């Protein structure tokens, strides 16, 4: 009887650094050209950046004049203005409060991202965390001086706007997506009209409407806080995009999944919660994270209605007559902050996708 052939290892020609260069960088003439082009651009950019940020600057400089002489990045500007940029016009001596509040907020978000914290007690953590943030920011309790939220600014404001934006836009968007696929014509029509209307206007116009037009319609003497109005505008805006993305995921779920769930007698909401949504949301993690990242950056648009978020604070820092002309420093500084947050969100989404993928496929 014939024996099956023994298994062999694959050939080793593609191994080693030379093999890597050949297969990854120079596998075809076009690839070789692109690789060389990329290397050339990197050679131009990186040394110049290092020179601008670390070689030319005089780290001991303390005045704008000394900075202007060197021509490099003015670290003195950051030293001088970072608290204004990070915390806006929040009372200077109390700025440890927004710092702590931001740290708590980031901490709670990071915990929420880890699967081992995904249980009911997470809601408690959020409750406590948000209460702490509220007390710290507003004060008026425990001997903390009261600070009205018109004075909030900088990073905590950006974080608050985007955290609440995502936290409310996401469930609202999911409900809208379900509504848009509903068999009830009324529900469906309302959801379609809402989604299409919101997606048809820019966020800027929504913010304007909430800050300028809305008060006109409210009864005399009745006003909603400006921050809250901006927050609601952001939520309403992002929810429409979340809805369309989630709908895409729902459409990708085969009919057999609904039938399988039907056949064991699950109710509509049980099906959605246990069978359909987990699969649909997993599919749309990448575009959903895209929406969250743009929401985070779009919070900078509240500048136009005069909220003092990170971007507005950077603008304010530059407008100081003494430190005029350092806008590159200021905007580079907040760009790095935005980048760190967005990049973390993006990396987390990749990790989450990989984690959820485990075992589902052969």
């Amino acid at each position: 009887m014939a024996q099956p052939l023994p298994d062999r290892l694959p050939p080793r020609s593609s191994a080693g650094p030379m093999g890597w260069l050949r297969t990854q960088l120079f596998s075809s003439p076009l690839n070789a050209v692109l690789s060389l082009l990329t290397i050339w651009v990197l050679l131009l950019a990186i040394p110049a950046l290092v020179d601008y940020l670390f070689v030319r600057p005089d780290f001991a400089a303390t005045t704008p004049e000394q900075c202007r002489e060197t021509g490099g990045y003015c670290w003195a500007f950051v030293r001088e203005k970072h608290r204004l940029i990070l915390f806006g016009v929040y009372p200077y001596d109390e700025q440890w409060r927004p710092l702590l509040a931001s740290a708590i907020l980031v901490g709670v978000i990071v915990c929420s991202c880890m699967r081992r914290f995904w249980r009911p007690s997470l809601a408690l953590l959020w409750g406590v965390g948000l209460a702490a943030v509220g007390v710290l920011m507003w004060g008026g309790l425990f001997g903390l001086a009261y600070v009205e939220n018109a004075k909030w600014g900088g990073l905590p404001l950006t974080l608050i706007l985007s955290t609440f934006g995502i936290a409310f836009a996401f469930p609202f968007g999911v409900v809208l997506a379900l509504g848009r696929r509903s068999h009830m014509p009324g529900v469906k029509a309302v959801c379609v009209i809402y989604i299409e209307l919101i997606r048809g206007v820019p966020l800027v116009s929504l913010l304007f409407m909430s800050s300028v037009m809305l008060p006109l319609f409210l009864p005399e003497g009745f006003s909603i806080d400006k921050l809250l109005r901006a927050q609601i505008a952001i939520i309403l805006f992002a929810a429409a995009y979340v809805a369309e993305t989630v709908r895409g995921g729902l459409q990708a779920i085969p009919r057999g999944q609904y039938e399988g769930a039907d056949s064991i007698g699950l109710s509509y909401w049980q099906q959605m919660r246990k069978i359909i949504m987990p699969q649909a949301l997993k599919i749309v993690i990448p575009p959903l994270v895209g929406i969250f990242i743009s929401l985070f950056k779009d919070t900078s648009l509240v500048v136009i209605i005069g909220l003092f978020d990170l971007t507005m604070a950077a603008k304010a820092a530059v407008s100081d007559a003494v430190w005029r002309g350092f806008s590159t420093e200021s905007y580079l500084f907040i760009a790095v902050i935005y980048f760190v947050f967005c990049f973390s969100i993006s990396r987390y989404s990749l990790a989450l996708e990989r984690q959820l993928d485990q075992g589902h496929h052969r």
Partner: protein
Amino acid sequence: MSEPIIQLKKVNKWYGQFHVLKDLDLDVAPSERIVICGPSGSGKSTMIRCINRLEEHQEGQIIVDGTELTNDLRQIEAIRRDVGMVFQHFNLFPHMTVLENLTLGPVWVLKRPRAEAEATAMKYLERVRIPDQAQKYPGQLSGGQQQRVAIARSLCMNPKIMLFDEPTSALDPEMVKEVLDVMVELAEETGMTMLCVTHEMGFARQVANRVIFMDHGEIIEQNTPDVFFDHPRNERTRLFLSQILH
């Protein structure tokens, strides 16, 4: 014959303009095992899918275990608790382990404690001979194993009636037998009411009390397997049988 557990009375259904079920009448006795065959498009799948309301009939009555199927959601859910279904493409939930697939219905629909549901699930996994796969995901199993999990998932709901919608037609040939063996065992040991759409004629001969032949939305002929296969009365039945038994 005792009181039928399933009754179809003058059931009609259309897909758009297409008349798929025409004045169907059918009585199924408790513990009866029926095999339904017929050419594709004859309405056989549609008929059994009407029994647990995966499809909606437009005219006539369907009464399952004394409850008539209407638009009342609570009645539909009640009937689905009593009627298990096995699909051609398994329809397992890919994001859950085998054990989670099996306990989902008992825990959420029947409100059983999780430990009890898991014990029941393991019992049925042993019955379909794959207890060692409990912690795997459906995607890691072969087609035959997946279909056996699907059978176990239905059984976990402790149904009075099992519907099989071409349970072996999506399987690789070498896996058909392991699924049929489980179904034969189920028929012989439990005395459950079974309606099975299949072209496995060996299975029909072995376990069915009655074989039904459908064509163009009608029941053309029904009889015990021996008579049905050996002495088909209708011309269309003979033609069909000659095409599948080569």
